[in-house]
C-alpha cells in the first residue's frame, strides 16, 4: 500500500512537471508573438511619434485615421530612372492635395513622403518594354513618417523601348546622306562629298546612340496616385 502510494505520488509529480513545461512553452510562444507584434508596432510607432520605445505594450490609439480607399496624389521631387537607379533606392515625394480622415486626421498638402524602387528593367529591343517598379512607402503625418500600404493607381512614367537596329542604321545613313549633299554643294567634287558624308555619318551615329531610348523614367514633377489599401492610423 505504501509502495502504491509512493508510485502514485511519483506519477503525480511527473505529471505536474510536464504541465509546467507545457506552460512555459505556451508562455514563450505568447511572448514571441507579442514581441513580433510589438516590433511591428514599434516600427510603425517609431515613424509616428518617436516617443514609444521598444515595448511590448500595444501603442495608444489616437483615433486619427485616413481610411482605406483614400486616394493620395504625390508629386515626385527626385527623378527616378532605370538608367540611374536600382532596386532598393529611395526617392522623395510630396503630397499634392490635403487628405482629411476621421478623428481629426489630416495629411496636409506638401507633406513629405518617401518612395522605394522595387523593380528596374531596361528595354532590350522594340518588343521589350522597359519596366520601373515603384512603391510609396511612407508619408509625413503628425510630424513624422507614417508607413502606408496602398496600390499605385497611376504614375507618370515616361517609357521608351530601345530603338531597332534598322532605325540606328537609318539614322547614320540619314546623317551620311545629308552630309554628302552639303559636302557636294560646298566642294563640288568627290573628296568634299565623301568628307561631308563621313562627318554626317558620325553625327548620325551620335544621334543614334543618344536617342536609342530603352529606359523608363519618372521625372521630377511627375505624379503618382496611390489608393490606400489599409487604414492609416496614427
Amino acid at each position, binding site marked *: 500500500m505504501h509502495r502504491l502510494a509512493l508510485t502514485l505520488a511519483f506519477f503525480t509529480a511527473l505529471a505536474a512537471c510536464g504541465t509546467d513545461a507545457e506552460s512555459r512553452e505556451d508562455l514563450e510562444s505568447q511572448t514571441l508573438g507579442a514581441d513580433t507584434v510589438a516590433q511591428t508596432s514599434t516600427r510603425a510607432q517609431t515613424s509616428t511619434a518617436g516617443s514609444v520605445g521598444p515595448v511590448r505594450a500595444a501603442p495608444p490609439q489616437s483615433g486619427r485615421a485616413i481610411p482605406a480607399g483614400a486616394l493620395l496624389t504625390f508629386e515626385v521631387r527626385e527623378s527616378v530612372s532605370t538608367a540611374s537607379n536600382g532596386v532598393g533606392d529611395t526617392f522623395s515625394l510630396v503630397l499634392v492635395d490635403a487628405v482629411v480622415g476621421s478623428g481629426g486626421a489630416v495629411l496636409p498638402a506638401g507633406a513629405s513622403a518617401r518612395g522605394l524602387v522595387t523593380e528596374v528593367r531596361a528595354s532590350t*529591343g*522594340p*518588343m521589350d518594354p522597359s519596366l520601373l517598379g515603384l512603391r510609396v512607402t511612407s508619408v509625413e503625418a503628425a510630424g513624422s513618417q507614417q508607413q502606408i500600404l496602398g496600390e499605385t493607381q497611376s504614375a507618370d512614367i515616361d517609357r521608351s523601348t530601345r*530603338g*531597332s*537596329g*534598322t*532605325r540606328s*542604321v*537609318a*539614322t547614320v*545613313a*540619314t546623317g*551620311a*546622306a*545629308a552630309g*554628302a*549633299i552639303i*559636302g*557636294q*554643294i560646298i566642294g*563640288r*567634287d*568627290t573628296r*568634299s*562629298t*565623301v568628307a561631308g*558624308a563621313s562627318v554626317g555619318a558620325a553625327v548620325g551615329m551620335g544621334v543614334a546612340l543618344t536617342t536609342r531610348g530603352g529606359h523608363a523614367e519618372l521625372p521630377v514633377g511627375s505624379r503618382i496616385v496611390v489608393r490606400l489599401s489599409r487604414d492609416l492610423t496614427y
Partner: protein
Amino acid sequence: MNTQRTTLRNRTIARWLPASAILAFSALWIFAAEAQAQVGIGVEGRAGVTFPQGDLSDAGAEAGLSLGAELQVNFQRNLTAYAGFHRHAFNCDDGCTLGDDPRSTGVAAGLKYIFHAPGDALAWARGGIVANTFESSTRSSDREIGFELGVGADMPIGTRLYLVPNIGFISHSTGNSLKANFFTLGLGAHVHLR
C-alpha cells in the same frame, strides 16, 4: 549588222519603255483596287549625291547632285511598285573628258520589298529598270535601258511623313562604248497619301 540590229532594238524598247511602264503601273493599280486590296499610295521626293564608277570615273567625272521624284503603290504587305523620274549629275572639271554638265536623266520603275520587322523603321530593298539618256555639252545619247538596285529605310517622322535614307546603284549604256555606272547616296521625303 548584228550590232546595228541590236542597237535598233534597244532604241525601240527605250522609246516605248516609259509608256509601257506607266501602262503596267496603271494596270497594277487598277488590278489592286478591283481586288479591294488595302492599297497604299505615296509620293516621294529625293535628293542625294552620285558617285561615278567605271568609265565615268575613268573619264574624270566627280561626284554630283542627284534629284528624283516617284509615285509608289503598296499593293501587298511587303511589296510596293514604284515609278518616277530622276536626274543624276556629275561634276566634270580639270582633266575630265565628258564635257560640261554631264548627267544621266530618265525614268525608272520597279518593285520595292519591305522587310517588316519589330521597330519603327522599315528597311527595304528594291530593284527596277531605268531608261536614261546621258548628256553633256559634248554628248547626247538616246534613252538607253539599264537597271537600278537600292536599299534604304523608311523612318517615320510624322503621321504620314517618312524620312528615307537610301543607297543605290544605277547602270545603263550610253549608246557607245561609255557605260554609265554610279552609286547614289540620297535622302528622300515620303508622304503617304492614303
